[in-house]
């Protein structure tokens, strides 16, 4: 099977510090993958490398067989950890901007999600709360028909009810051709939705397993195992 994401001996250093240290990974299409690890373990670095926001110090990263670049951005939908949207714009204007920018953007889906989450399209971004802004950003990302969704902390700032809706959107959006990678600390909220788990620790992969393998082998939830592996 062709992998949607391949990392071969991927290393990224910031000065002397290695944020990612010789990581090799393969992720298949049709998976929902949890990228888990404590603060500073390299989760966001990995996601940024996928988007060409960073370039590898050594090793290789391939998205659908290609190096990150213009071609891969057509098939990757990325939710950054921080918002980059212009505050003065209306929600509807941002949606139009995305529609203009990405050929795979589904306008109807975006408006449907806005309605479900009670967000007024004519509101200016500036006037929205932090959580609502995050919802808007997630709607933009999930309204694309991408092959790879990279969600960096997608549910951290939103309330539990919206969290459920977002997870349902991810499940409902599922297709055999698209993969979702979610980086988060809120493991117990999302573990039922995940196929595979990648545990990162100090820039290295310590675990790649399915959720049911973990539960079967340890008799623990992924959340409980995380607390044990990364006990402070």
């Amino acid at each position, binding site marked *: 099977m062709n992998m949607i994401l391949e990392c071969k001996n991927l290393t990224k250093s910031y000065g002397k510090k290695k944020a990612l240290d010789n990581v090799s990974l393969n992720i298949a299409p*049709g*998976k*929902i993958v949890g990228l888990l690890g404590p603060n500073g373990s390299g989760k966001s670095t990995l996601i940024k490398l996928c988007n060409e926001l960073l370039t590898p110090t050594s090793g290789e990263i391939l998205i659908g067989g290609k190096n990150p670049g213009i071609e891969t951005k057509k098939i990757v939908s990325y939710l950054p950890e921080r918002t980059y949207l212009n505050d003065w714009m209306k929600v509807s204007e941002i949606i139009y901007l995305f529609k203009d920018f990405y050929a795979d953007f589904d306008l109807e889906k975006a408006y449907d999600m806005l309605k479900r989450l009670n967000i007024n399209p004519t509101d200016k971004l500036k006037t929205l709360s932090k959580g609502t802004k995050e919802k808007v950003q997630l709607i933009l990302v999930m309204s694309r028909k991408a092959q790879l969704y990279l969600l960096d902390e997608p549910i951290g700032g939103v309330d539990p009810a919206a969290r459920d809706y977002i*997870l349902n959107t991810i*499940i409902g959006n*599922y297709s055999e051709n698209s993969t979702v990678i979610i980086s988060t600390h809120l493991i*117990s909220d999302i573990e039922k939705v995940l196929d595979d788990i990648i545990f990162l620790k100090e820039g290295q992969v310590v675990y790649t397993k399915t*959720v049911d393998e973990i*539960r079967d082998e340890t*008799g623990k939830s992924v959340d409980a195992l995380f607390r044990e592996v990364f006990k402070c």
Partner: protein
Amino acid sequence: MSWDLKSDRPIYAQLIEQLELKICSGVYALGSKLPSVRDLAEEAAVNPNTMQRALVRLEEDGLLYTQRTSGRFITEDANMVIQIKDKIAREQIREFLEKMINLGFSRKDILSNITKILEEMRENEYDSRV
């Protein structure tokens, strides 16, 4: 009936149990069409691949069957459901008995307690009716 999933056991195994329970209790009637994998996954808030695996397993066990173009259906074999009900009942009773034995009850005590509580339940039902 909602989906009650515990966090310390494989999701796949729990989905199988809950689907069996839903079929036995008539939530999904014999011979009827099962909702799609995606709908079931959304309802249970689980990964569609995991739901798919559970359904394939129930198909192998004969409780479900696939009609090539029109989806998955519940078996029409009532005997099969009786067998599964029996299996679930045995598991539940065994689990209960193990707990009681651990608590130090003798076989005789367990039986007399069960009879007593059944009696109480019947009286309560009677009370609530009059």
